[in-house]
């Protein structure tokens, strides 16, 4: 009979071990799933960013003709654009790499900053603002930027879901064991500025027109 009890206890222990094993696997698979969802979400942003980076050289080419004295700013824009494009390519290739993501966020911030400056400078060139191509490009950039923001909301949402799953108490041990790292949010302050600068441009333009009409 003693053996019987021993067997029962052992069976219990084994059962527990199996349940723990299954649980670890469950957590692991859950994290993988969340991470994949997050990475898949990035592709939506990546496509829009690529579009934006394709538009910027056109903008610079156009602006160059008007802004002869702002050479350094234009060079900065191109430089920042190239850096951001490279960072985007790196993240697209491996969205799980937090370092690449950090660089991406930083590069986007820089780009947003110089772009904001470029648009601010363009205020001083009424010919440029009246240019049909310029208006089209600005419109295109704004709508692309808006789509980036839209996709970013979804991305940051899934980053939060993933990070939460990673940080809650028992799961964080599993995450540590398998080397899951926290994902970086895609938050760029500078980006908003471009959008705003463009919008105010538009609004001002509207104002100008109404002013002229009067």
């Amino acid at each position, binding site marked *: 009979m003693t*053996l*019987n009890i*021993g*067997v*029962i206890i*052992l*069976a219990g222990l*084994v*059962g527990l*071990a*199996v*349940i723990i*094993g*299954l649980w670890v696997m*469950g957590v692991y*698979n*859950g994290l*993988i*799933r969340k991470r*994949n*969802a997050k*990475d*898949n*979400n990035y*592709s*939506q942003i990546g*496509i*829009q960013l690529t579009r934006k980076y394709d538009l910027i050289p056109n903008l610079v080419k156009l602006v160059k003709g008007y802004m002869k004295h702002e050479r350094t700013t234009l060079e900065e824009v191109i430089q920042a654009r190239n850096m951001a494009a490279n960072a985007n390519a790196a993240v697209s290739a491996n969205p799980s790499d937090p370092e690449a993501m950090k660089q991406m966020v930083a590069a986007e911030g820089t780009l947003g900053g110089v772009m904001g400056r470029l648009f601010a400078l363009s205020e001083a060139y009424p010919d440029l603002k009246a240019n049909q191509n310029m208006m089209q490009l600005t419109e295109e950039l*704004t*709508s692309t930027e*808006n*789509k980036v923001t*839209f*996709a970013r*909301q*979804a991305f940051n*949402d*899934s980053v939060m879901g993933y990070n939460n799953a990673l940080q809650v108490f028992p799961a964080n041990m599993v995450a540590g064991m398998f080397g899951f790292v926290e994902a970086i949010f895609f938050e760029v302050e500078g980006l908003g500025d471009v959008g705003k600068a463009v919008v105010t441009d538009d609004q001002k333009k509207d104002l100008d027109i109404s002013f002229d009409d009067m």
Partner: protein
Amino acid sequence: MDFFERQQQAKKKTGYLVFLFGVAVLLISLLNHLLVATVLGASGATEGDMEFGTSAYTDPELAGLVFMGTFVVIGIAGLFRRMQLSGGGSSVAAMMGGRLVNMATTDPDERKLMNVVEEMAIASSVPVPEVYVMDGEAGINAFAAGYTLDDAVIGVTDGCMRRLSRDELQGVIAHEFSHILNQDMKLNLRLVAVIYGLIALAVIGRVLLQIGFYSSHGRSRRSSENGGGGGALAIGVVGLGLMATSGLGILMGNLIKSAVSRQREYLADSSAVQYTRNPEGLAGALKKIGAMATGSRLLTPHAEEASHMFFGNGMRESWFSFTATHPPLLDRILLLEPSFDGDFSEVKFEERRSPTAKPDSKAQRTQSGIPIPGMGDALGQALPPVIMGLAAAGQVQVGSAAAVADSVGNPTRQHIDFAAALLRSLPEAVRAAAHDTHDACALVFALLLDPKDGPVQKKQLGQVNGLFGEQMAKATLKLRSEVASLDPRAKLPVADLAVGSLRQLSPEQFAHFKLAMDGLAKADEQIDLFEFSLSKLVLRHLEPHFVKRRKKTARYYSLKKLSHECSVLISSLACTAGSSAEAIQTAYDAGAAHLAAATRLTQLPAAECGLQELDRALGKLAGVAINLKRQLIEAAAATVSADGYLQIQEAELLRAVSDSLGCPMPPLAIALAAA
């Protein structure tokens, strides 16, 4: 065999499977019991307690314990796996290491793949499924997974996407779609869960063996005493025995899996040919698998568990044909192409394109970029005259209601050609918008926008602006004119396309989207048929993606208790079909005749069978057994086509009704039935 029968068969197969599996588990439990009793008896015997040894076999307590233990372990593990897979197709795709293909992709091979998938989705009236690519898998293989039409995904290997021609790819995708439409995927996911339970038992056996081995090993070193070694040895032996019995179980499970899977593969092959009417495409794909060194082999470690989900054999050729999850390649090819001599060396491969090569789809793109004078002309090139008739007159003659029901879940070559023509004829702006999450929202809003540039439209745009901001309202306005010029038949398919992108919304964005749709539909103080059909379609297919808890619909195996719901369905359809009281009566009678045997119907006045009532009734009717759904759809088709003709509006409503019942009806099914 039609859609309903195939689904019923899949269901029967599941029942059969559960039965076989129960038998297998019982057998394993019995073996386990014998094993434990023998070990206990043997170890008891060394202590000189002979009586205990013989009685252990018949000890009811021990038997109960072992049987229960076995059932619990297998049950828990199986349920656990099921829970994990409850995410549906996307969780399987994640398991396989798939990467979601962006709908707006610019890679030419990915574009080709998406085009083929979109065509097939429109032809069979299901929302575009998520498509995953398994990068780094050079073999040619594909899978479909998910519980329902809404969470279905299609996965293809990199080799499949890049090495097959368009026709071959279409054959493979049609094969996968037939798995989706036949509900094979549900069966497949259950198989995965069941086999996982058996694997868990084997894992326990191994753990026990190790415990037994180590403790007896350690003990014998520590002391020369022999007494304690017996228990540890017994544990080791039990572990070994468990591994053996569960091994047997896994073998049995695999046999069941293989037997079911092989049959479904043949069925999917024949359905794929039925859809595409092009056996060469599918045969070509199979031949390429045969000709390639890697064939259809998969590298992912999870291949074994899900081997039965794949297009081709993902594992190494097994020794015994009865454990293979797929029929032999040559047999499959010979069924499609009886003249094939089995010589794979003749198979030609196109040059493997690198992602940067000249895009093949560019040509198509520019073609569609050329303004097409009239939708009717563009479609007319690819379509039989009877569909042209619909385009011209806005209505079409109907064969029989049974023919309409037959077309459900059974797209044909004509549907696929129609879908291709329709996709080509879409303005570039609309197509691009459907591929982008942000613009897909705007596209759906534009479809709901009041055509007149009046106060209603202003109100609607204000609503969009309030929920999504100025840019969204602008995008909606921009798409309005494009949408207005769409062929009326193209509108619901466009929404099917958009659903694919809308899955990428965040939950919060989806909540806003739902609010906006509701607001737009109600802006003119009434919901018309199109608004009803559209919101029903979009929300029905999107909601399961965002609301994790699936609503349990009650199951009904008879329409007797649902007489009110059936009455609402037929009465409201009759009100749509006829304008005069007389016409309504004829329509109602035509539909009611089909259901007269099943339930008692009462004709309801128009006020009592509005769209809201219809919606509620459909929610309940969605739970009826599949063979009853056929009756319902036949009755619905008979009602709306009582006058012998079907207007576009009626066709759309019929489609929405069928869709709500979980039966995808190909667009223009009616036109084709008459052909």
